């Protein structure tokens, strides 16, 4: 270690710069969106403003983390949106009226996710096909449960989502907690390394004697768990449910993972980045657009345009960093 080879110092400096840039990119896009909001409406940067603007950020962040787990294993979950909707319906009906049955149903959902992961691994099926099919299953079940919007969130859930902590708005505290838990679980635990490795080089993990079946089922079960949390959080905010409530979450969650520095293949994901990506999307969605005086009719299209610009910028910057 004492005598470094001549090219070594230069190269390691390059690596550090690249890793730093990769890690800071998501934070940069969040800062840009915040700066735009502050410029358009300085009063929004306040305790009350953040509580209002980040109202829906908690369920989006949870859905994004859910999506991140499947992406870590080189898969994609196209059913997360309708799954969140289904969980909302269960929460607003069964979990309120018969808590034990409701809890069993939600646990069963996580089991279904684990089974899907096992099926995808064992039969070597493309995950987008399986989860696209499942998205219709979840949607159908949600409509069966709640044909028209209604139901009511359990009181304890309303209480949790309505907490008003001193100084720091609840959504920000919740986002930090979500990021911390998922970062520790996936990036710091010894089994988390195996889970990520299964996306990076499955053959190597297999040769080292680990079960890829367990890894895949585990990743999908984690997706199911965070999907359930996302649906419960959403009902806690909206107080009642609707079978179509979560439909937009599928694409939002994928965009959040990618915006946060994740890649579709290779097991490269970042839980902290994913949460920041979700916050960016939540802010760029309605608050920013409303402050820009864009009429509601055009907001969905404008939201899409912002997504395209932000993602394209990320790809361009990370390509530059690679060179």
């Amino acid at each position, binding site marked *: 270690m004492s005598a470094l080879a001549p090219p070594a110092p230069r190269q390691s400096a390059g690596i550090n710069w690249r890793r730093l840039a990769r890690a800071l990119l998501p934070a940069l896009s969040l800062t840009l969106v915040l700066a735009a909001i502050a410029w358009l409406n300085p009063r929004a940067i306040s305790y009350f403003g953040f509580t209002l603007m980040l109202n829906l950020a908690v369920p989006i962040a949870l859905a994004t983390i859910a999506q991140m787990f499947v992406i870590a294993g080189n898969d994609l979950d196209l059913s997360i949106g309708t799954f969140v909707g289904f969980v909302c319906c269960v929460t607003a009906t069964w979990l309120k009226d018969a808590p034990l049955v409701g809890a069993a149903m939600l646990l069963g959902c996580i089991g279904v996710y684990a089974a899907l992961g096992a099926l995808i691994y064992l039969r070597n099926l493309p995950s987008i096909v399986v989860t696209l099919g499942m998205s219709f299953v979840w949607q159908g079940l949600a409509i069966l449960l709640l044909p028209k919007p209604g139901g009511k969130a359990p009181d304890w859930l309303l209480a949790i989502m309505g907490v008003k902590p001193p100084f720091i708005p609840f959504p920000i505290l919740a986002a930090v907690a979500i990021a911390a838990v998922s970062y520790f679980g996936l990036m710091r635990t010894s*089994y988390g390394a195996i889970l990520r490795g299964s996306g*990076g080089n499955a053959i190597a993990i297999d040769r080292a004697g680990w079960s890829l079946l367990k890894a895949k089922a585990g990743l999908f079960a984690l997706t199911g768990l965070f999907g359930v949390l996302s649906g419960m959080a959403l009902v806690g905010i909206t107080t009642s449910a609707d079978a179509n409530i979560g439909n937009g979450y599928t694409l939002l969650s994928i965009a959040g993972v990618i915006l946060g520095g994740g890649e579709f293949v*290779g097991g490269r994901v970042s839980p902290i980045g994913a949460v920041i990506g979700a916050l960016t999307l939540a802010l760029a969605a309605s608050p920013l657009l409303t402050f820009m005086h864009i009429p509601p009719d055009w907001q969905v299209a404008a939201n899409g345009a912002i997504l395209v610009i932000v993602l394209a910028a990320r790809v361009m910057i990370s390509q530059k960093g690679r060179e």
Partner: protein
Amino acid sequence: MAVADVTIVSLDGVEKSFGAVRALGGVNFSVSRSECVGLVGHNGAGKSTLMHVLAGTAAPDKGRIVIAGVEQRQYSAARAKDLGVRCVFQELSLCPNLTVAENARVFHPALRGFNWRRKAGKLIVDKLDEIFPDHGIGASDLIQDLSIGRRQMVEVARAFTVSDRPADLVILDEPTSSLDAHTAGQLLAFVRRSVANGVSCIFISHILGEVLRNCDRIAVMRDGKVVVADRAEAFDRNKLIAAMGGVHQSEREVNSASVPTGRSQAPVRVRALPARQSEGVELIAHEGEVIGLAGLAGHGQTDLLLSIFSASTRRRVGVEVAAPVALVAGDRQSDGIFPQWSISENIGVRSLSKLRDGLLISRRREDDLANAWRDKIKIRTPDMHNNILSLSGGNQQKALFARALASDAAIVLMDDPMRGVDFGTKLEVYALIREEARAGRTFLWYTTETDELKNCDHVYVFRNGAIVADLARDEISEERVIQSSFAGAH
């Protein structure tokens, strides 16, 4: 044998086939404790398959595997690890998205608990320090950010780390292929130290000098069998080459600067300088010539063909192409055929402008073209409208030749196209190539089968991405090609 010690691994009559290809045809092989066995052989001799069998990642069709005196019936990768058999595979088996320490953790299930990251990092960095003292690799570096040479260093070091299970036999498959001379020397010195401490090694290398200098015993493989195995002192370079190639020949030093004789006077069609060629020889192909590209697999032949191919549509430094180009892909399943299409469509796709009728493709002309080539090249099918997958492998390959030859391309690049093709088909295609060459086409033919080079007018031998020998027709011989492929390891 001088070290008549404890035999830790022995294979007895091991056979393994992949489809119709017989990779191992009854291998007998053994390794004793504290012994370094060198394994050499030409492309496709079965070395890598043998290693996969030993490492438990490929199950043999027949034969016995005995490890530490116990016959292994349910042998697997996990069992191999429990028994202390480690393997550094040629294709790297690190997870690029994980750090160096995390990759060590993947390898050692025992590394867990609260401070596993520190333990894993210390384990791997200590071993790297021991083998490559000035490696410059940190435990928290991501593998994807390391150069290929450093990745190989991590991979090798990881194979020698010990946590709860022993490392009794370490198999090194081309471990020095991405290392420079300095680090390769460090690795070889470490291998000798480990062997002195009771570890056994199997060392596979194409660099014969390394094998001769560092191994106690050398086994030579050819055509899926171990043909000779003896103490290293019993061999020298010539004997090894003779055993691999089967012909005794006195050593003739290859002079890469020798001026080739008897080149065609026809116009030059291709002039290409391999990217890693510093000076001297460039590849030149004249009209009507069949040019062979030889050497060990993966030494830059395919890269050069691909750069010639792309030079036909946009300018590239160091490559000049004077006519349209067609490529016959080597991996026909992934790069060659369109699996959903019929045979006719697969043949016609390179000639669409010729088949066009207005904006659409003329079905009649496509059929005419396909049928003409069916008769000429003898594609065995009742109907050219059948799906391409209804053909046998050899006939699929013929369809790919037809695609190239039916086109307007005056230069045909062939990327080892005869892999897995039966002998009869090969002879037919050879005749066709000669006929087309007489008619003025130029062929650039990369092949791993030395026999095929006899069909060439001129052969360039590649090593490490550069041309190392330039053989005229009367100089082409198997020994000559093997000599050049292994030169530089004196």
